């Protein structure tokens, strides 16, 4: 029965494609925005049936590599390309921020009655291995009145290379000179302490099961799985819990210092309401698109994404871009030549 249906669909498909060949645009890259991207590409194909965008979430590294080699029409990444990567690319790639993500500390502290507060020093100390117990005075100072046990902290981090890790360590590098010097920034790093869990689900699984563990996951993942997440002290000294508004606030604060090429890290952004462990995720669009039809389709999608697309983001728990950034990007679309 199934085969009959499948064959039927196949035949219908063939007839359909004979009717009007939709233009196929291939993209590849970041996994973090995949749910919202696939929703966008679906919606966009509904409005423009002659354009079909095919996106493979192979990871930011693969996205940068394939876009640089021009084996795909566009790439996507969770961390901006560095100058060395830009230099090596066969074509100049323009960065277009699409949505925002945040990374939150999550923990398993049976004694904790309320959400914990984390200062930047505490987070860096825990992940560097210099703060080893939950009743450390640094933690106690940020959490007056909280019951903190005399137990060893079990650190959990991502084992797979990921944009989540990139944002997390980018933040730690900004707030801790020691981290910057000893560990640095990357999608995978040489962790001073801790266990590695594969994917958000691996980290979440270990933290949920292991008493006195702490790890970090994407905000969306923490919300969907109702995991406890701590408030983090931002650069204005306020403890802020991550949420769509706090994330967009961080981006709006950072927009004032936005460079023309959008390659910017917005972790530790200024502003009272800004959540500090936040990042854009980008599409990588070639500056020169050989096929004018494809160029028109891609820029058309970018315009739609900045207007209608943004409205679809919050329902999937992605923070939309602040108005200032949308305005800048709308202007930047003009740089794409075809």
């Amino acid at each position, binding site marked *: 029965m199934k085969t009959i249906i499948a064959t039927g669909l196949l035949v219908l498909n063939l007839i359909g494609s004979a009717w009007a060949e939709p233009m196929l645009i291939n993209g590849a890259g970041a996994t973090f925005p995949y749910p919202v991207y696939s929703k966008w590409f679906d919606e966009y194909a509904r409005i423009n049936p002659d354009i079909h965008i095919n996106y493979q979430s192979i990871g930011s590294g693969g996205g940068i590599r394939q876009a640089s080699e021009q084996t795909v029409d566009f790439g996507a990444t969770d961390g901006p390309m560095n100058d*060395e990567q830009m230099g090596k690319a066969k074509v100049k790639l323009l960065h277009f921020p699409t949505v925002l993500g945040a990374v939150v500390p999550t923990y398993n502290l049976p004694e904790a009655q309320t959400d914990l507060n984390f200062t930047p020093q505490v987070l860096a100390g825990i992940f560097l291995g210099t703060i080893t117990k939950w009743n450390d005075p640094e933690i106690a100072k940020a959490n007056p009145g909280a019951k903190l046990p005399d137990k060893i902290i079990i650190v959990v981090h991502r084992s*797979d290379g*990921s944009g989540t890790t990139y944002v997390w360590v980018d933040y730690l590098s900004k707030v801790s000179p020691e981290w910057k010097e000893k560990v640095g920034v990357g*999608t995978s790093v040489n962790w001073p302490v801790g266990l*590695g869990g594969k994917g958000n689900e691996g980290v979440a699984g270990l933290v949920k099961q292991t008493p006195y563990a702490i790890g970090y996951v994407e905000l969306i993942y923490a919300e969907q799985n109702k995991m406890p997440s701590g408030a983090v002290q931002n650069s204005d000294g306020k403890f802020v819990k991550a949420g769509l508004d706090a994330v967009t606030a961080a981006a709006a604060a950072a927009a004032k210092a936005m460079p023309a090429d959008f390659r910017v890290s917005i972790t530790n952004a200024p502003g009272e309401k800004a959540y500090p462990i936040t990042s854009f995720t980008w599409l990588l669009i070639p500056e020169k698109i050989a096929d004018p039809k494809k160029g028109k389709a891609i820029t058309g999608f970018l315009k739609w994404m900045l207007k209608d697309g943004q409205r679809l983001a919050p329902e999937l728990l992605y923070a939309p871009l602040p108005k200032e950034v949308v305005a800048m990007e709308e202007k930047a679309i003009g740089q794409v030549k075809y």
Partner: protein
Amino acid sequence: MVRSSISPFRFAAFHRPGVSPADRFFRATVFTVAMSVLLIMGVIAFELVRNSRLPIAKFGWGFLWGTTWDPVAERFGALPFLYGTLVSSALALLIAVPVGLGVAIFLSELAPRWLSDPVTFLVELLAAIPSVIYGLVGIFVLVPLIRNSLEPLLSAALGFLPFFQGAPYGVGMLTAGLLLAMMVVPFVVSVSREILMAVPHSQREAVLSLGATQWEMVRIAVLPYARSGIMGSIFLALARALGETMAVTMVIGNRPEIRLSLFEPGYTMAAVIANEFTEATSDLYVQTLVEIGLVLFAVTILVNALARLLIYNVFTKVEVRE
């Protein structure tokens, strides 16, 4: 497949002169198929070397005993992964071989048919479960069990040994070994059982008629007859354990360090490739991961060759004594 491992010369009879054209055609066909295996191996080896030129030039042989893995500073060493792969696989075989052989002997020699048939079916079903499912079972069932029961028990009873010391995380080398053992037992069982069933009944009857117990019958008449097939099943299990990626990475803790204690987290070669390949951007980083693949390839060949040699020697000595 397993039987061919008994002796590559078994089918030498095909090379007789004066065979019919049909036979000649058949011979040529199977020869080509067999050679294609060699060709594929050759191409894999060549491509692995070709795509890891950068790290080979940069780190040289030192890559094999380097212990740092720092993607940010691009300093790489393979030893922790080498150690993790070998130790987790050895641990898995240590558990899986006796258990698997026991099950196989029970199924082929002792179990009544109404029991042996369904159990055999279920065992073969176990082999078909995707490894990510084993990984999930590992995370949600095995890890808490090991953290709360097995590791405290082991450290209380055998804590004086360096292998059973340290904090019980639940994830680590021990868990990886146990999970791998679960995954390879079906291979040992189903292949060994087939081999044991193929042992002629006259063998068993001859020994039983001399007044042997069932255990003596198995030991004297069945196992020696089936040894090369059993060897084959162990190799199959070993190969699966060395290359297993998904399930292992979910429970081993993914920490590139060499620790004697089995409670501590470790890392394997297959796991680090799967974990870091998608996000590796620089050429050196990507090629280093390919070189890890090359090392894994070499280790698989080497370990299989060594195991063959070892088991061959052991069995020939047994034969001399008999």
